[in-house]
């Protein structure tokens, strides 16, 4: 089975992340981005017959699709919550395409985002756990710093095995900041960041410094995935799904044989094979970046460089929108912001913008093929996509 050209992203929307909620609610944000994405696709709510929702990190609520569907007056034939952590938005794209390909629906609205800030984020961390999960029993009593320490363990092991350096990791954050400085919607649009700034910022979980770690914020994004006949009528160039692959492992690093190799080593080859596209043909890499190490591991496991050479690779290439290897041209989550799972949708919206020629000052010349990778947990869930215009 292939999903190559089975559907296209024809509408996108995103609100500028803000450090705090400022009275916004998650449902309010979802409504806002849903309306804008449907309008961007040139559709109305009555055309939407599929609805996928990425659950907010803060606050547990059952039956989100029904709640949002009621609010928008959308009554889907296909609906679900896609709960793959940061990989949820990329996971929504191929699920929507598969549902469309199966004839279940024609226009799937995919929604993410939340009202969050540092206080609500910490309140969630301190909350008494309600479920008896292995991580709660065998990890939490030893004081992990959320997922931060998990990525630190990956980075430390990567440095040990491959000689990766703090300076190489810092380069990822600095290049992405240069990109954010060309994106007025980025949380850190107005602030510069050099490699030395990153290395001089406080160590939080060795070897990761403050500016190698995402911060929680408020924001949201939505996309509309449509069937080929609908896509051909859309007002913007459709961003076709050419290939998709998904792979996962558990959420506890104690259970992972080789923590420096992620399931991207399985998901990315599937996506490229389905797309019939070579790595060297890719014009934009949109790689989930909760931490700098995530990007280095992604580049290796997706096959853009040899395993273990991610450090030298990011040092040898210019990752900015003006460079030879454009990566996360919106700034990535590290500089654009991570408004809950909408952080993972930012890699998609940026890829679509670049493919459609709507990326403003940071527009790449001749951007026809994009690789998008979504990552959830501690590199636990991986969804790789190849998108293209043609």
């Amino acid at each position: 089975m292939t999903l190559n050209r089975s559907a296209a992203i024809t509408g996108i929307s995103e609100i500028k992340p803000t450090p705090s909620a400022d009275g916004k609610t998650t449902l309010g944000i979802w409504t806002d981005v849903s309306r804008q994405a449907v309008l961007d696709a040139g559709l109305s709510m009555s055309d939407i017959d599929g609805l996928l929702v990425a659950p907010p990190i803060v606050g547990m609520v059952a039956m989100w699709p029904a709640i949002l569907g009621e609010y928008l007056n959308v009554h889907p034939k296909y609906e679900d919550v896609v709960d793959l952590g940061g990989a949820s938005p990329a996971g929504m794209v191929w699920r929507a395409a598969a549902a469309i390909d199966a004839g279940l629906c024609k226009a799937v609205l995919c929604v993410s985002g939340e009202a969050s800030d540092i206080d609500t984020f910490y309140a969630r961390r301190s909350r008494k756990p309600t479920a008896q999960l292995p991580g709660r029993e065998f990890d939490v009593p030893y004081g992990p710093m959320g997922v931060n320490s998990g990525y630190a363990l990956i980075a430390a092991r990567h440095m040990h095995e491959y000689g990766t350096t703090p300076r190489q990791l810092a380069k990822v954050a600095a290049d992405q900041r240069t990109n954010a400085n060309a994106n007025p919607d980025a949380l850190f649009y107005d602030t510069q960041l050099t490699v030395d700034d990153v290395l001089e910022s406080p160590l939080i979980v060795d070897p990761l410094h403050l500016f190698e770690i995402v911060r929680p914020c408020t924001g949201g994004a939505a996309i509309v995935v449509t069937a080929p006949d609908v896509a051909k009528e859309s007002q913007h160039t459709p961003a076709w799904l050419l290939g998709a692959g998904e792979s996962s492992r558990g959420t506890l690093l104690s259970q992972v044989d080789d923590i420096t190799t992620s399931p991207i080593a399985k998901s990315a080859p599937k996506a490229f094979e389905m797309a019939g596209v070579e790595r060297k043909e890719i014009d934009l890499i949109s790689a989930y970046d909760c931490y700098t190490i995530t990007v280095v591991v992604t580049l290796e496991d997706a096959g853009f460089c040899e395993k273990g050479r991610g450090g030298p690779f990011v040092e040898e290439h210019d990752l900015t929108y003006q460079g030879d290897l454009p990566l996360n041209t919106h700034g990535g989550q590290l500089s654009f912001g991570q408004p809950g799972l909408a952080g993972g949708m930012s890699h998609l919206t940026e890829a679509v913008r670049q493919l459609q020629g709507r990326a403003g000052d940071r527009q790449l010349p001749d951007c026809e093929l994009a690789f998008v990778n979504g990552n959830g947990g501690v590199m636990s869930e991986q969804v790789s996509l190849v998108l293209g215009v043609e």
Partner: protein
Amino acid sequence: MTHQNEYRKPLPVPSAVSQQFWAGLREREVRLPRCRQCEKFVFYPRTICPFCMGVEFDWVKVSGNGKVYSFTVVRRAMIPAFQEATPYVLALVELEEGPRLTTNIVNCDVGNVRVDMPVQATYDDVTAEITLLKFEPA
């Protein structure tokens, strides 16, 4: 009892499946479940063997020796009770018998921990009921 009242970090809640592990630590032993069918050690304890789908386990005392697979120095904690303990070392330790577990490296300056460093079990009686398994340089 004073010690128990003072301990404010999250505690494990032993279950029927894991009770023998925690009971072993109280008695200064690392006991792990070993699958009766494939004879592999399994950690964390669970009701199905992840290697062969076996459902019967023997609890076996292991050496308590291992090495650091990876580690981080936590300098900023999420939970207030841990903030007071910073900086501390959170590590993945690989036991001689195979399984890895999440733990702390103690009795060692945070700057002296290294990947592959040999370590041995040490037992931290954090409350009257719970002992945590930590590791120190061997």
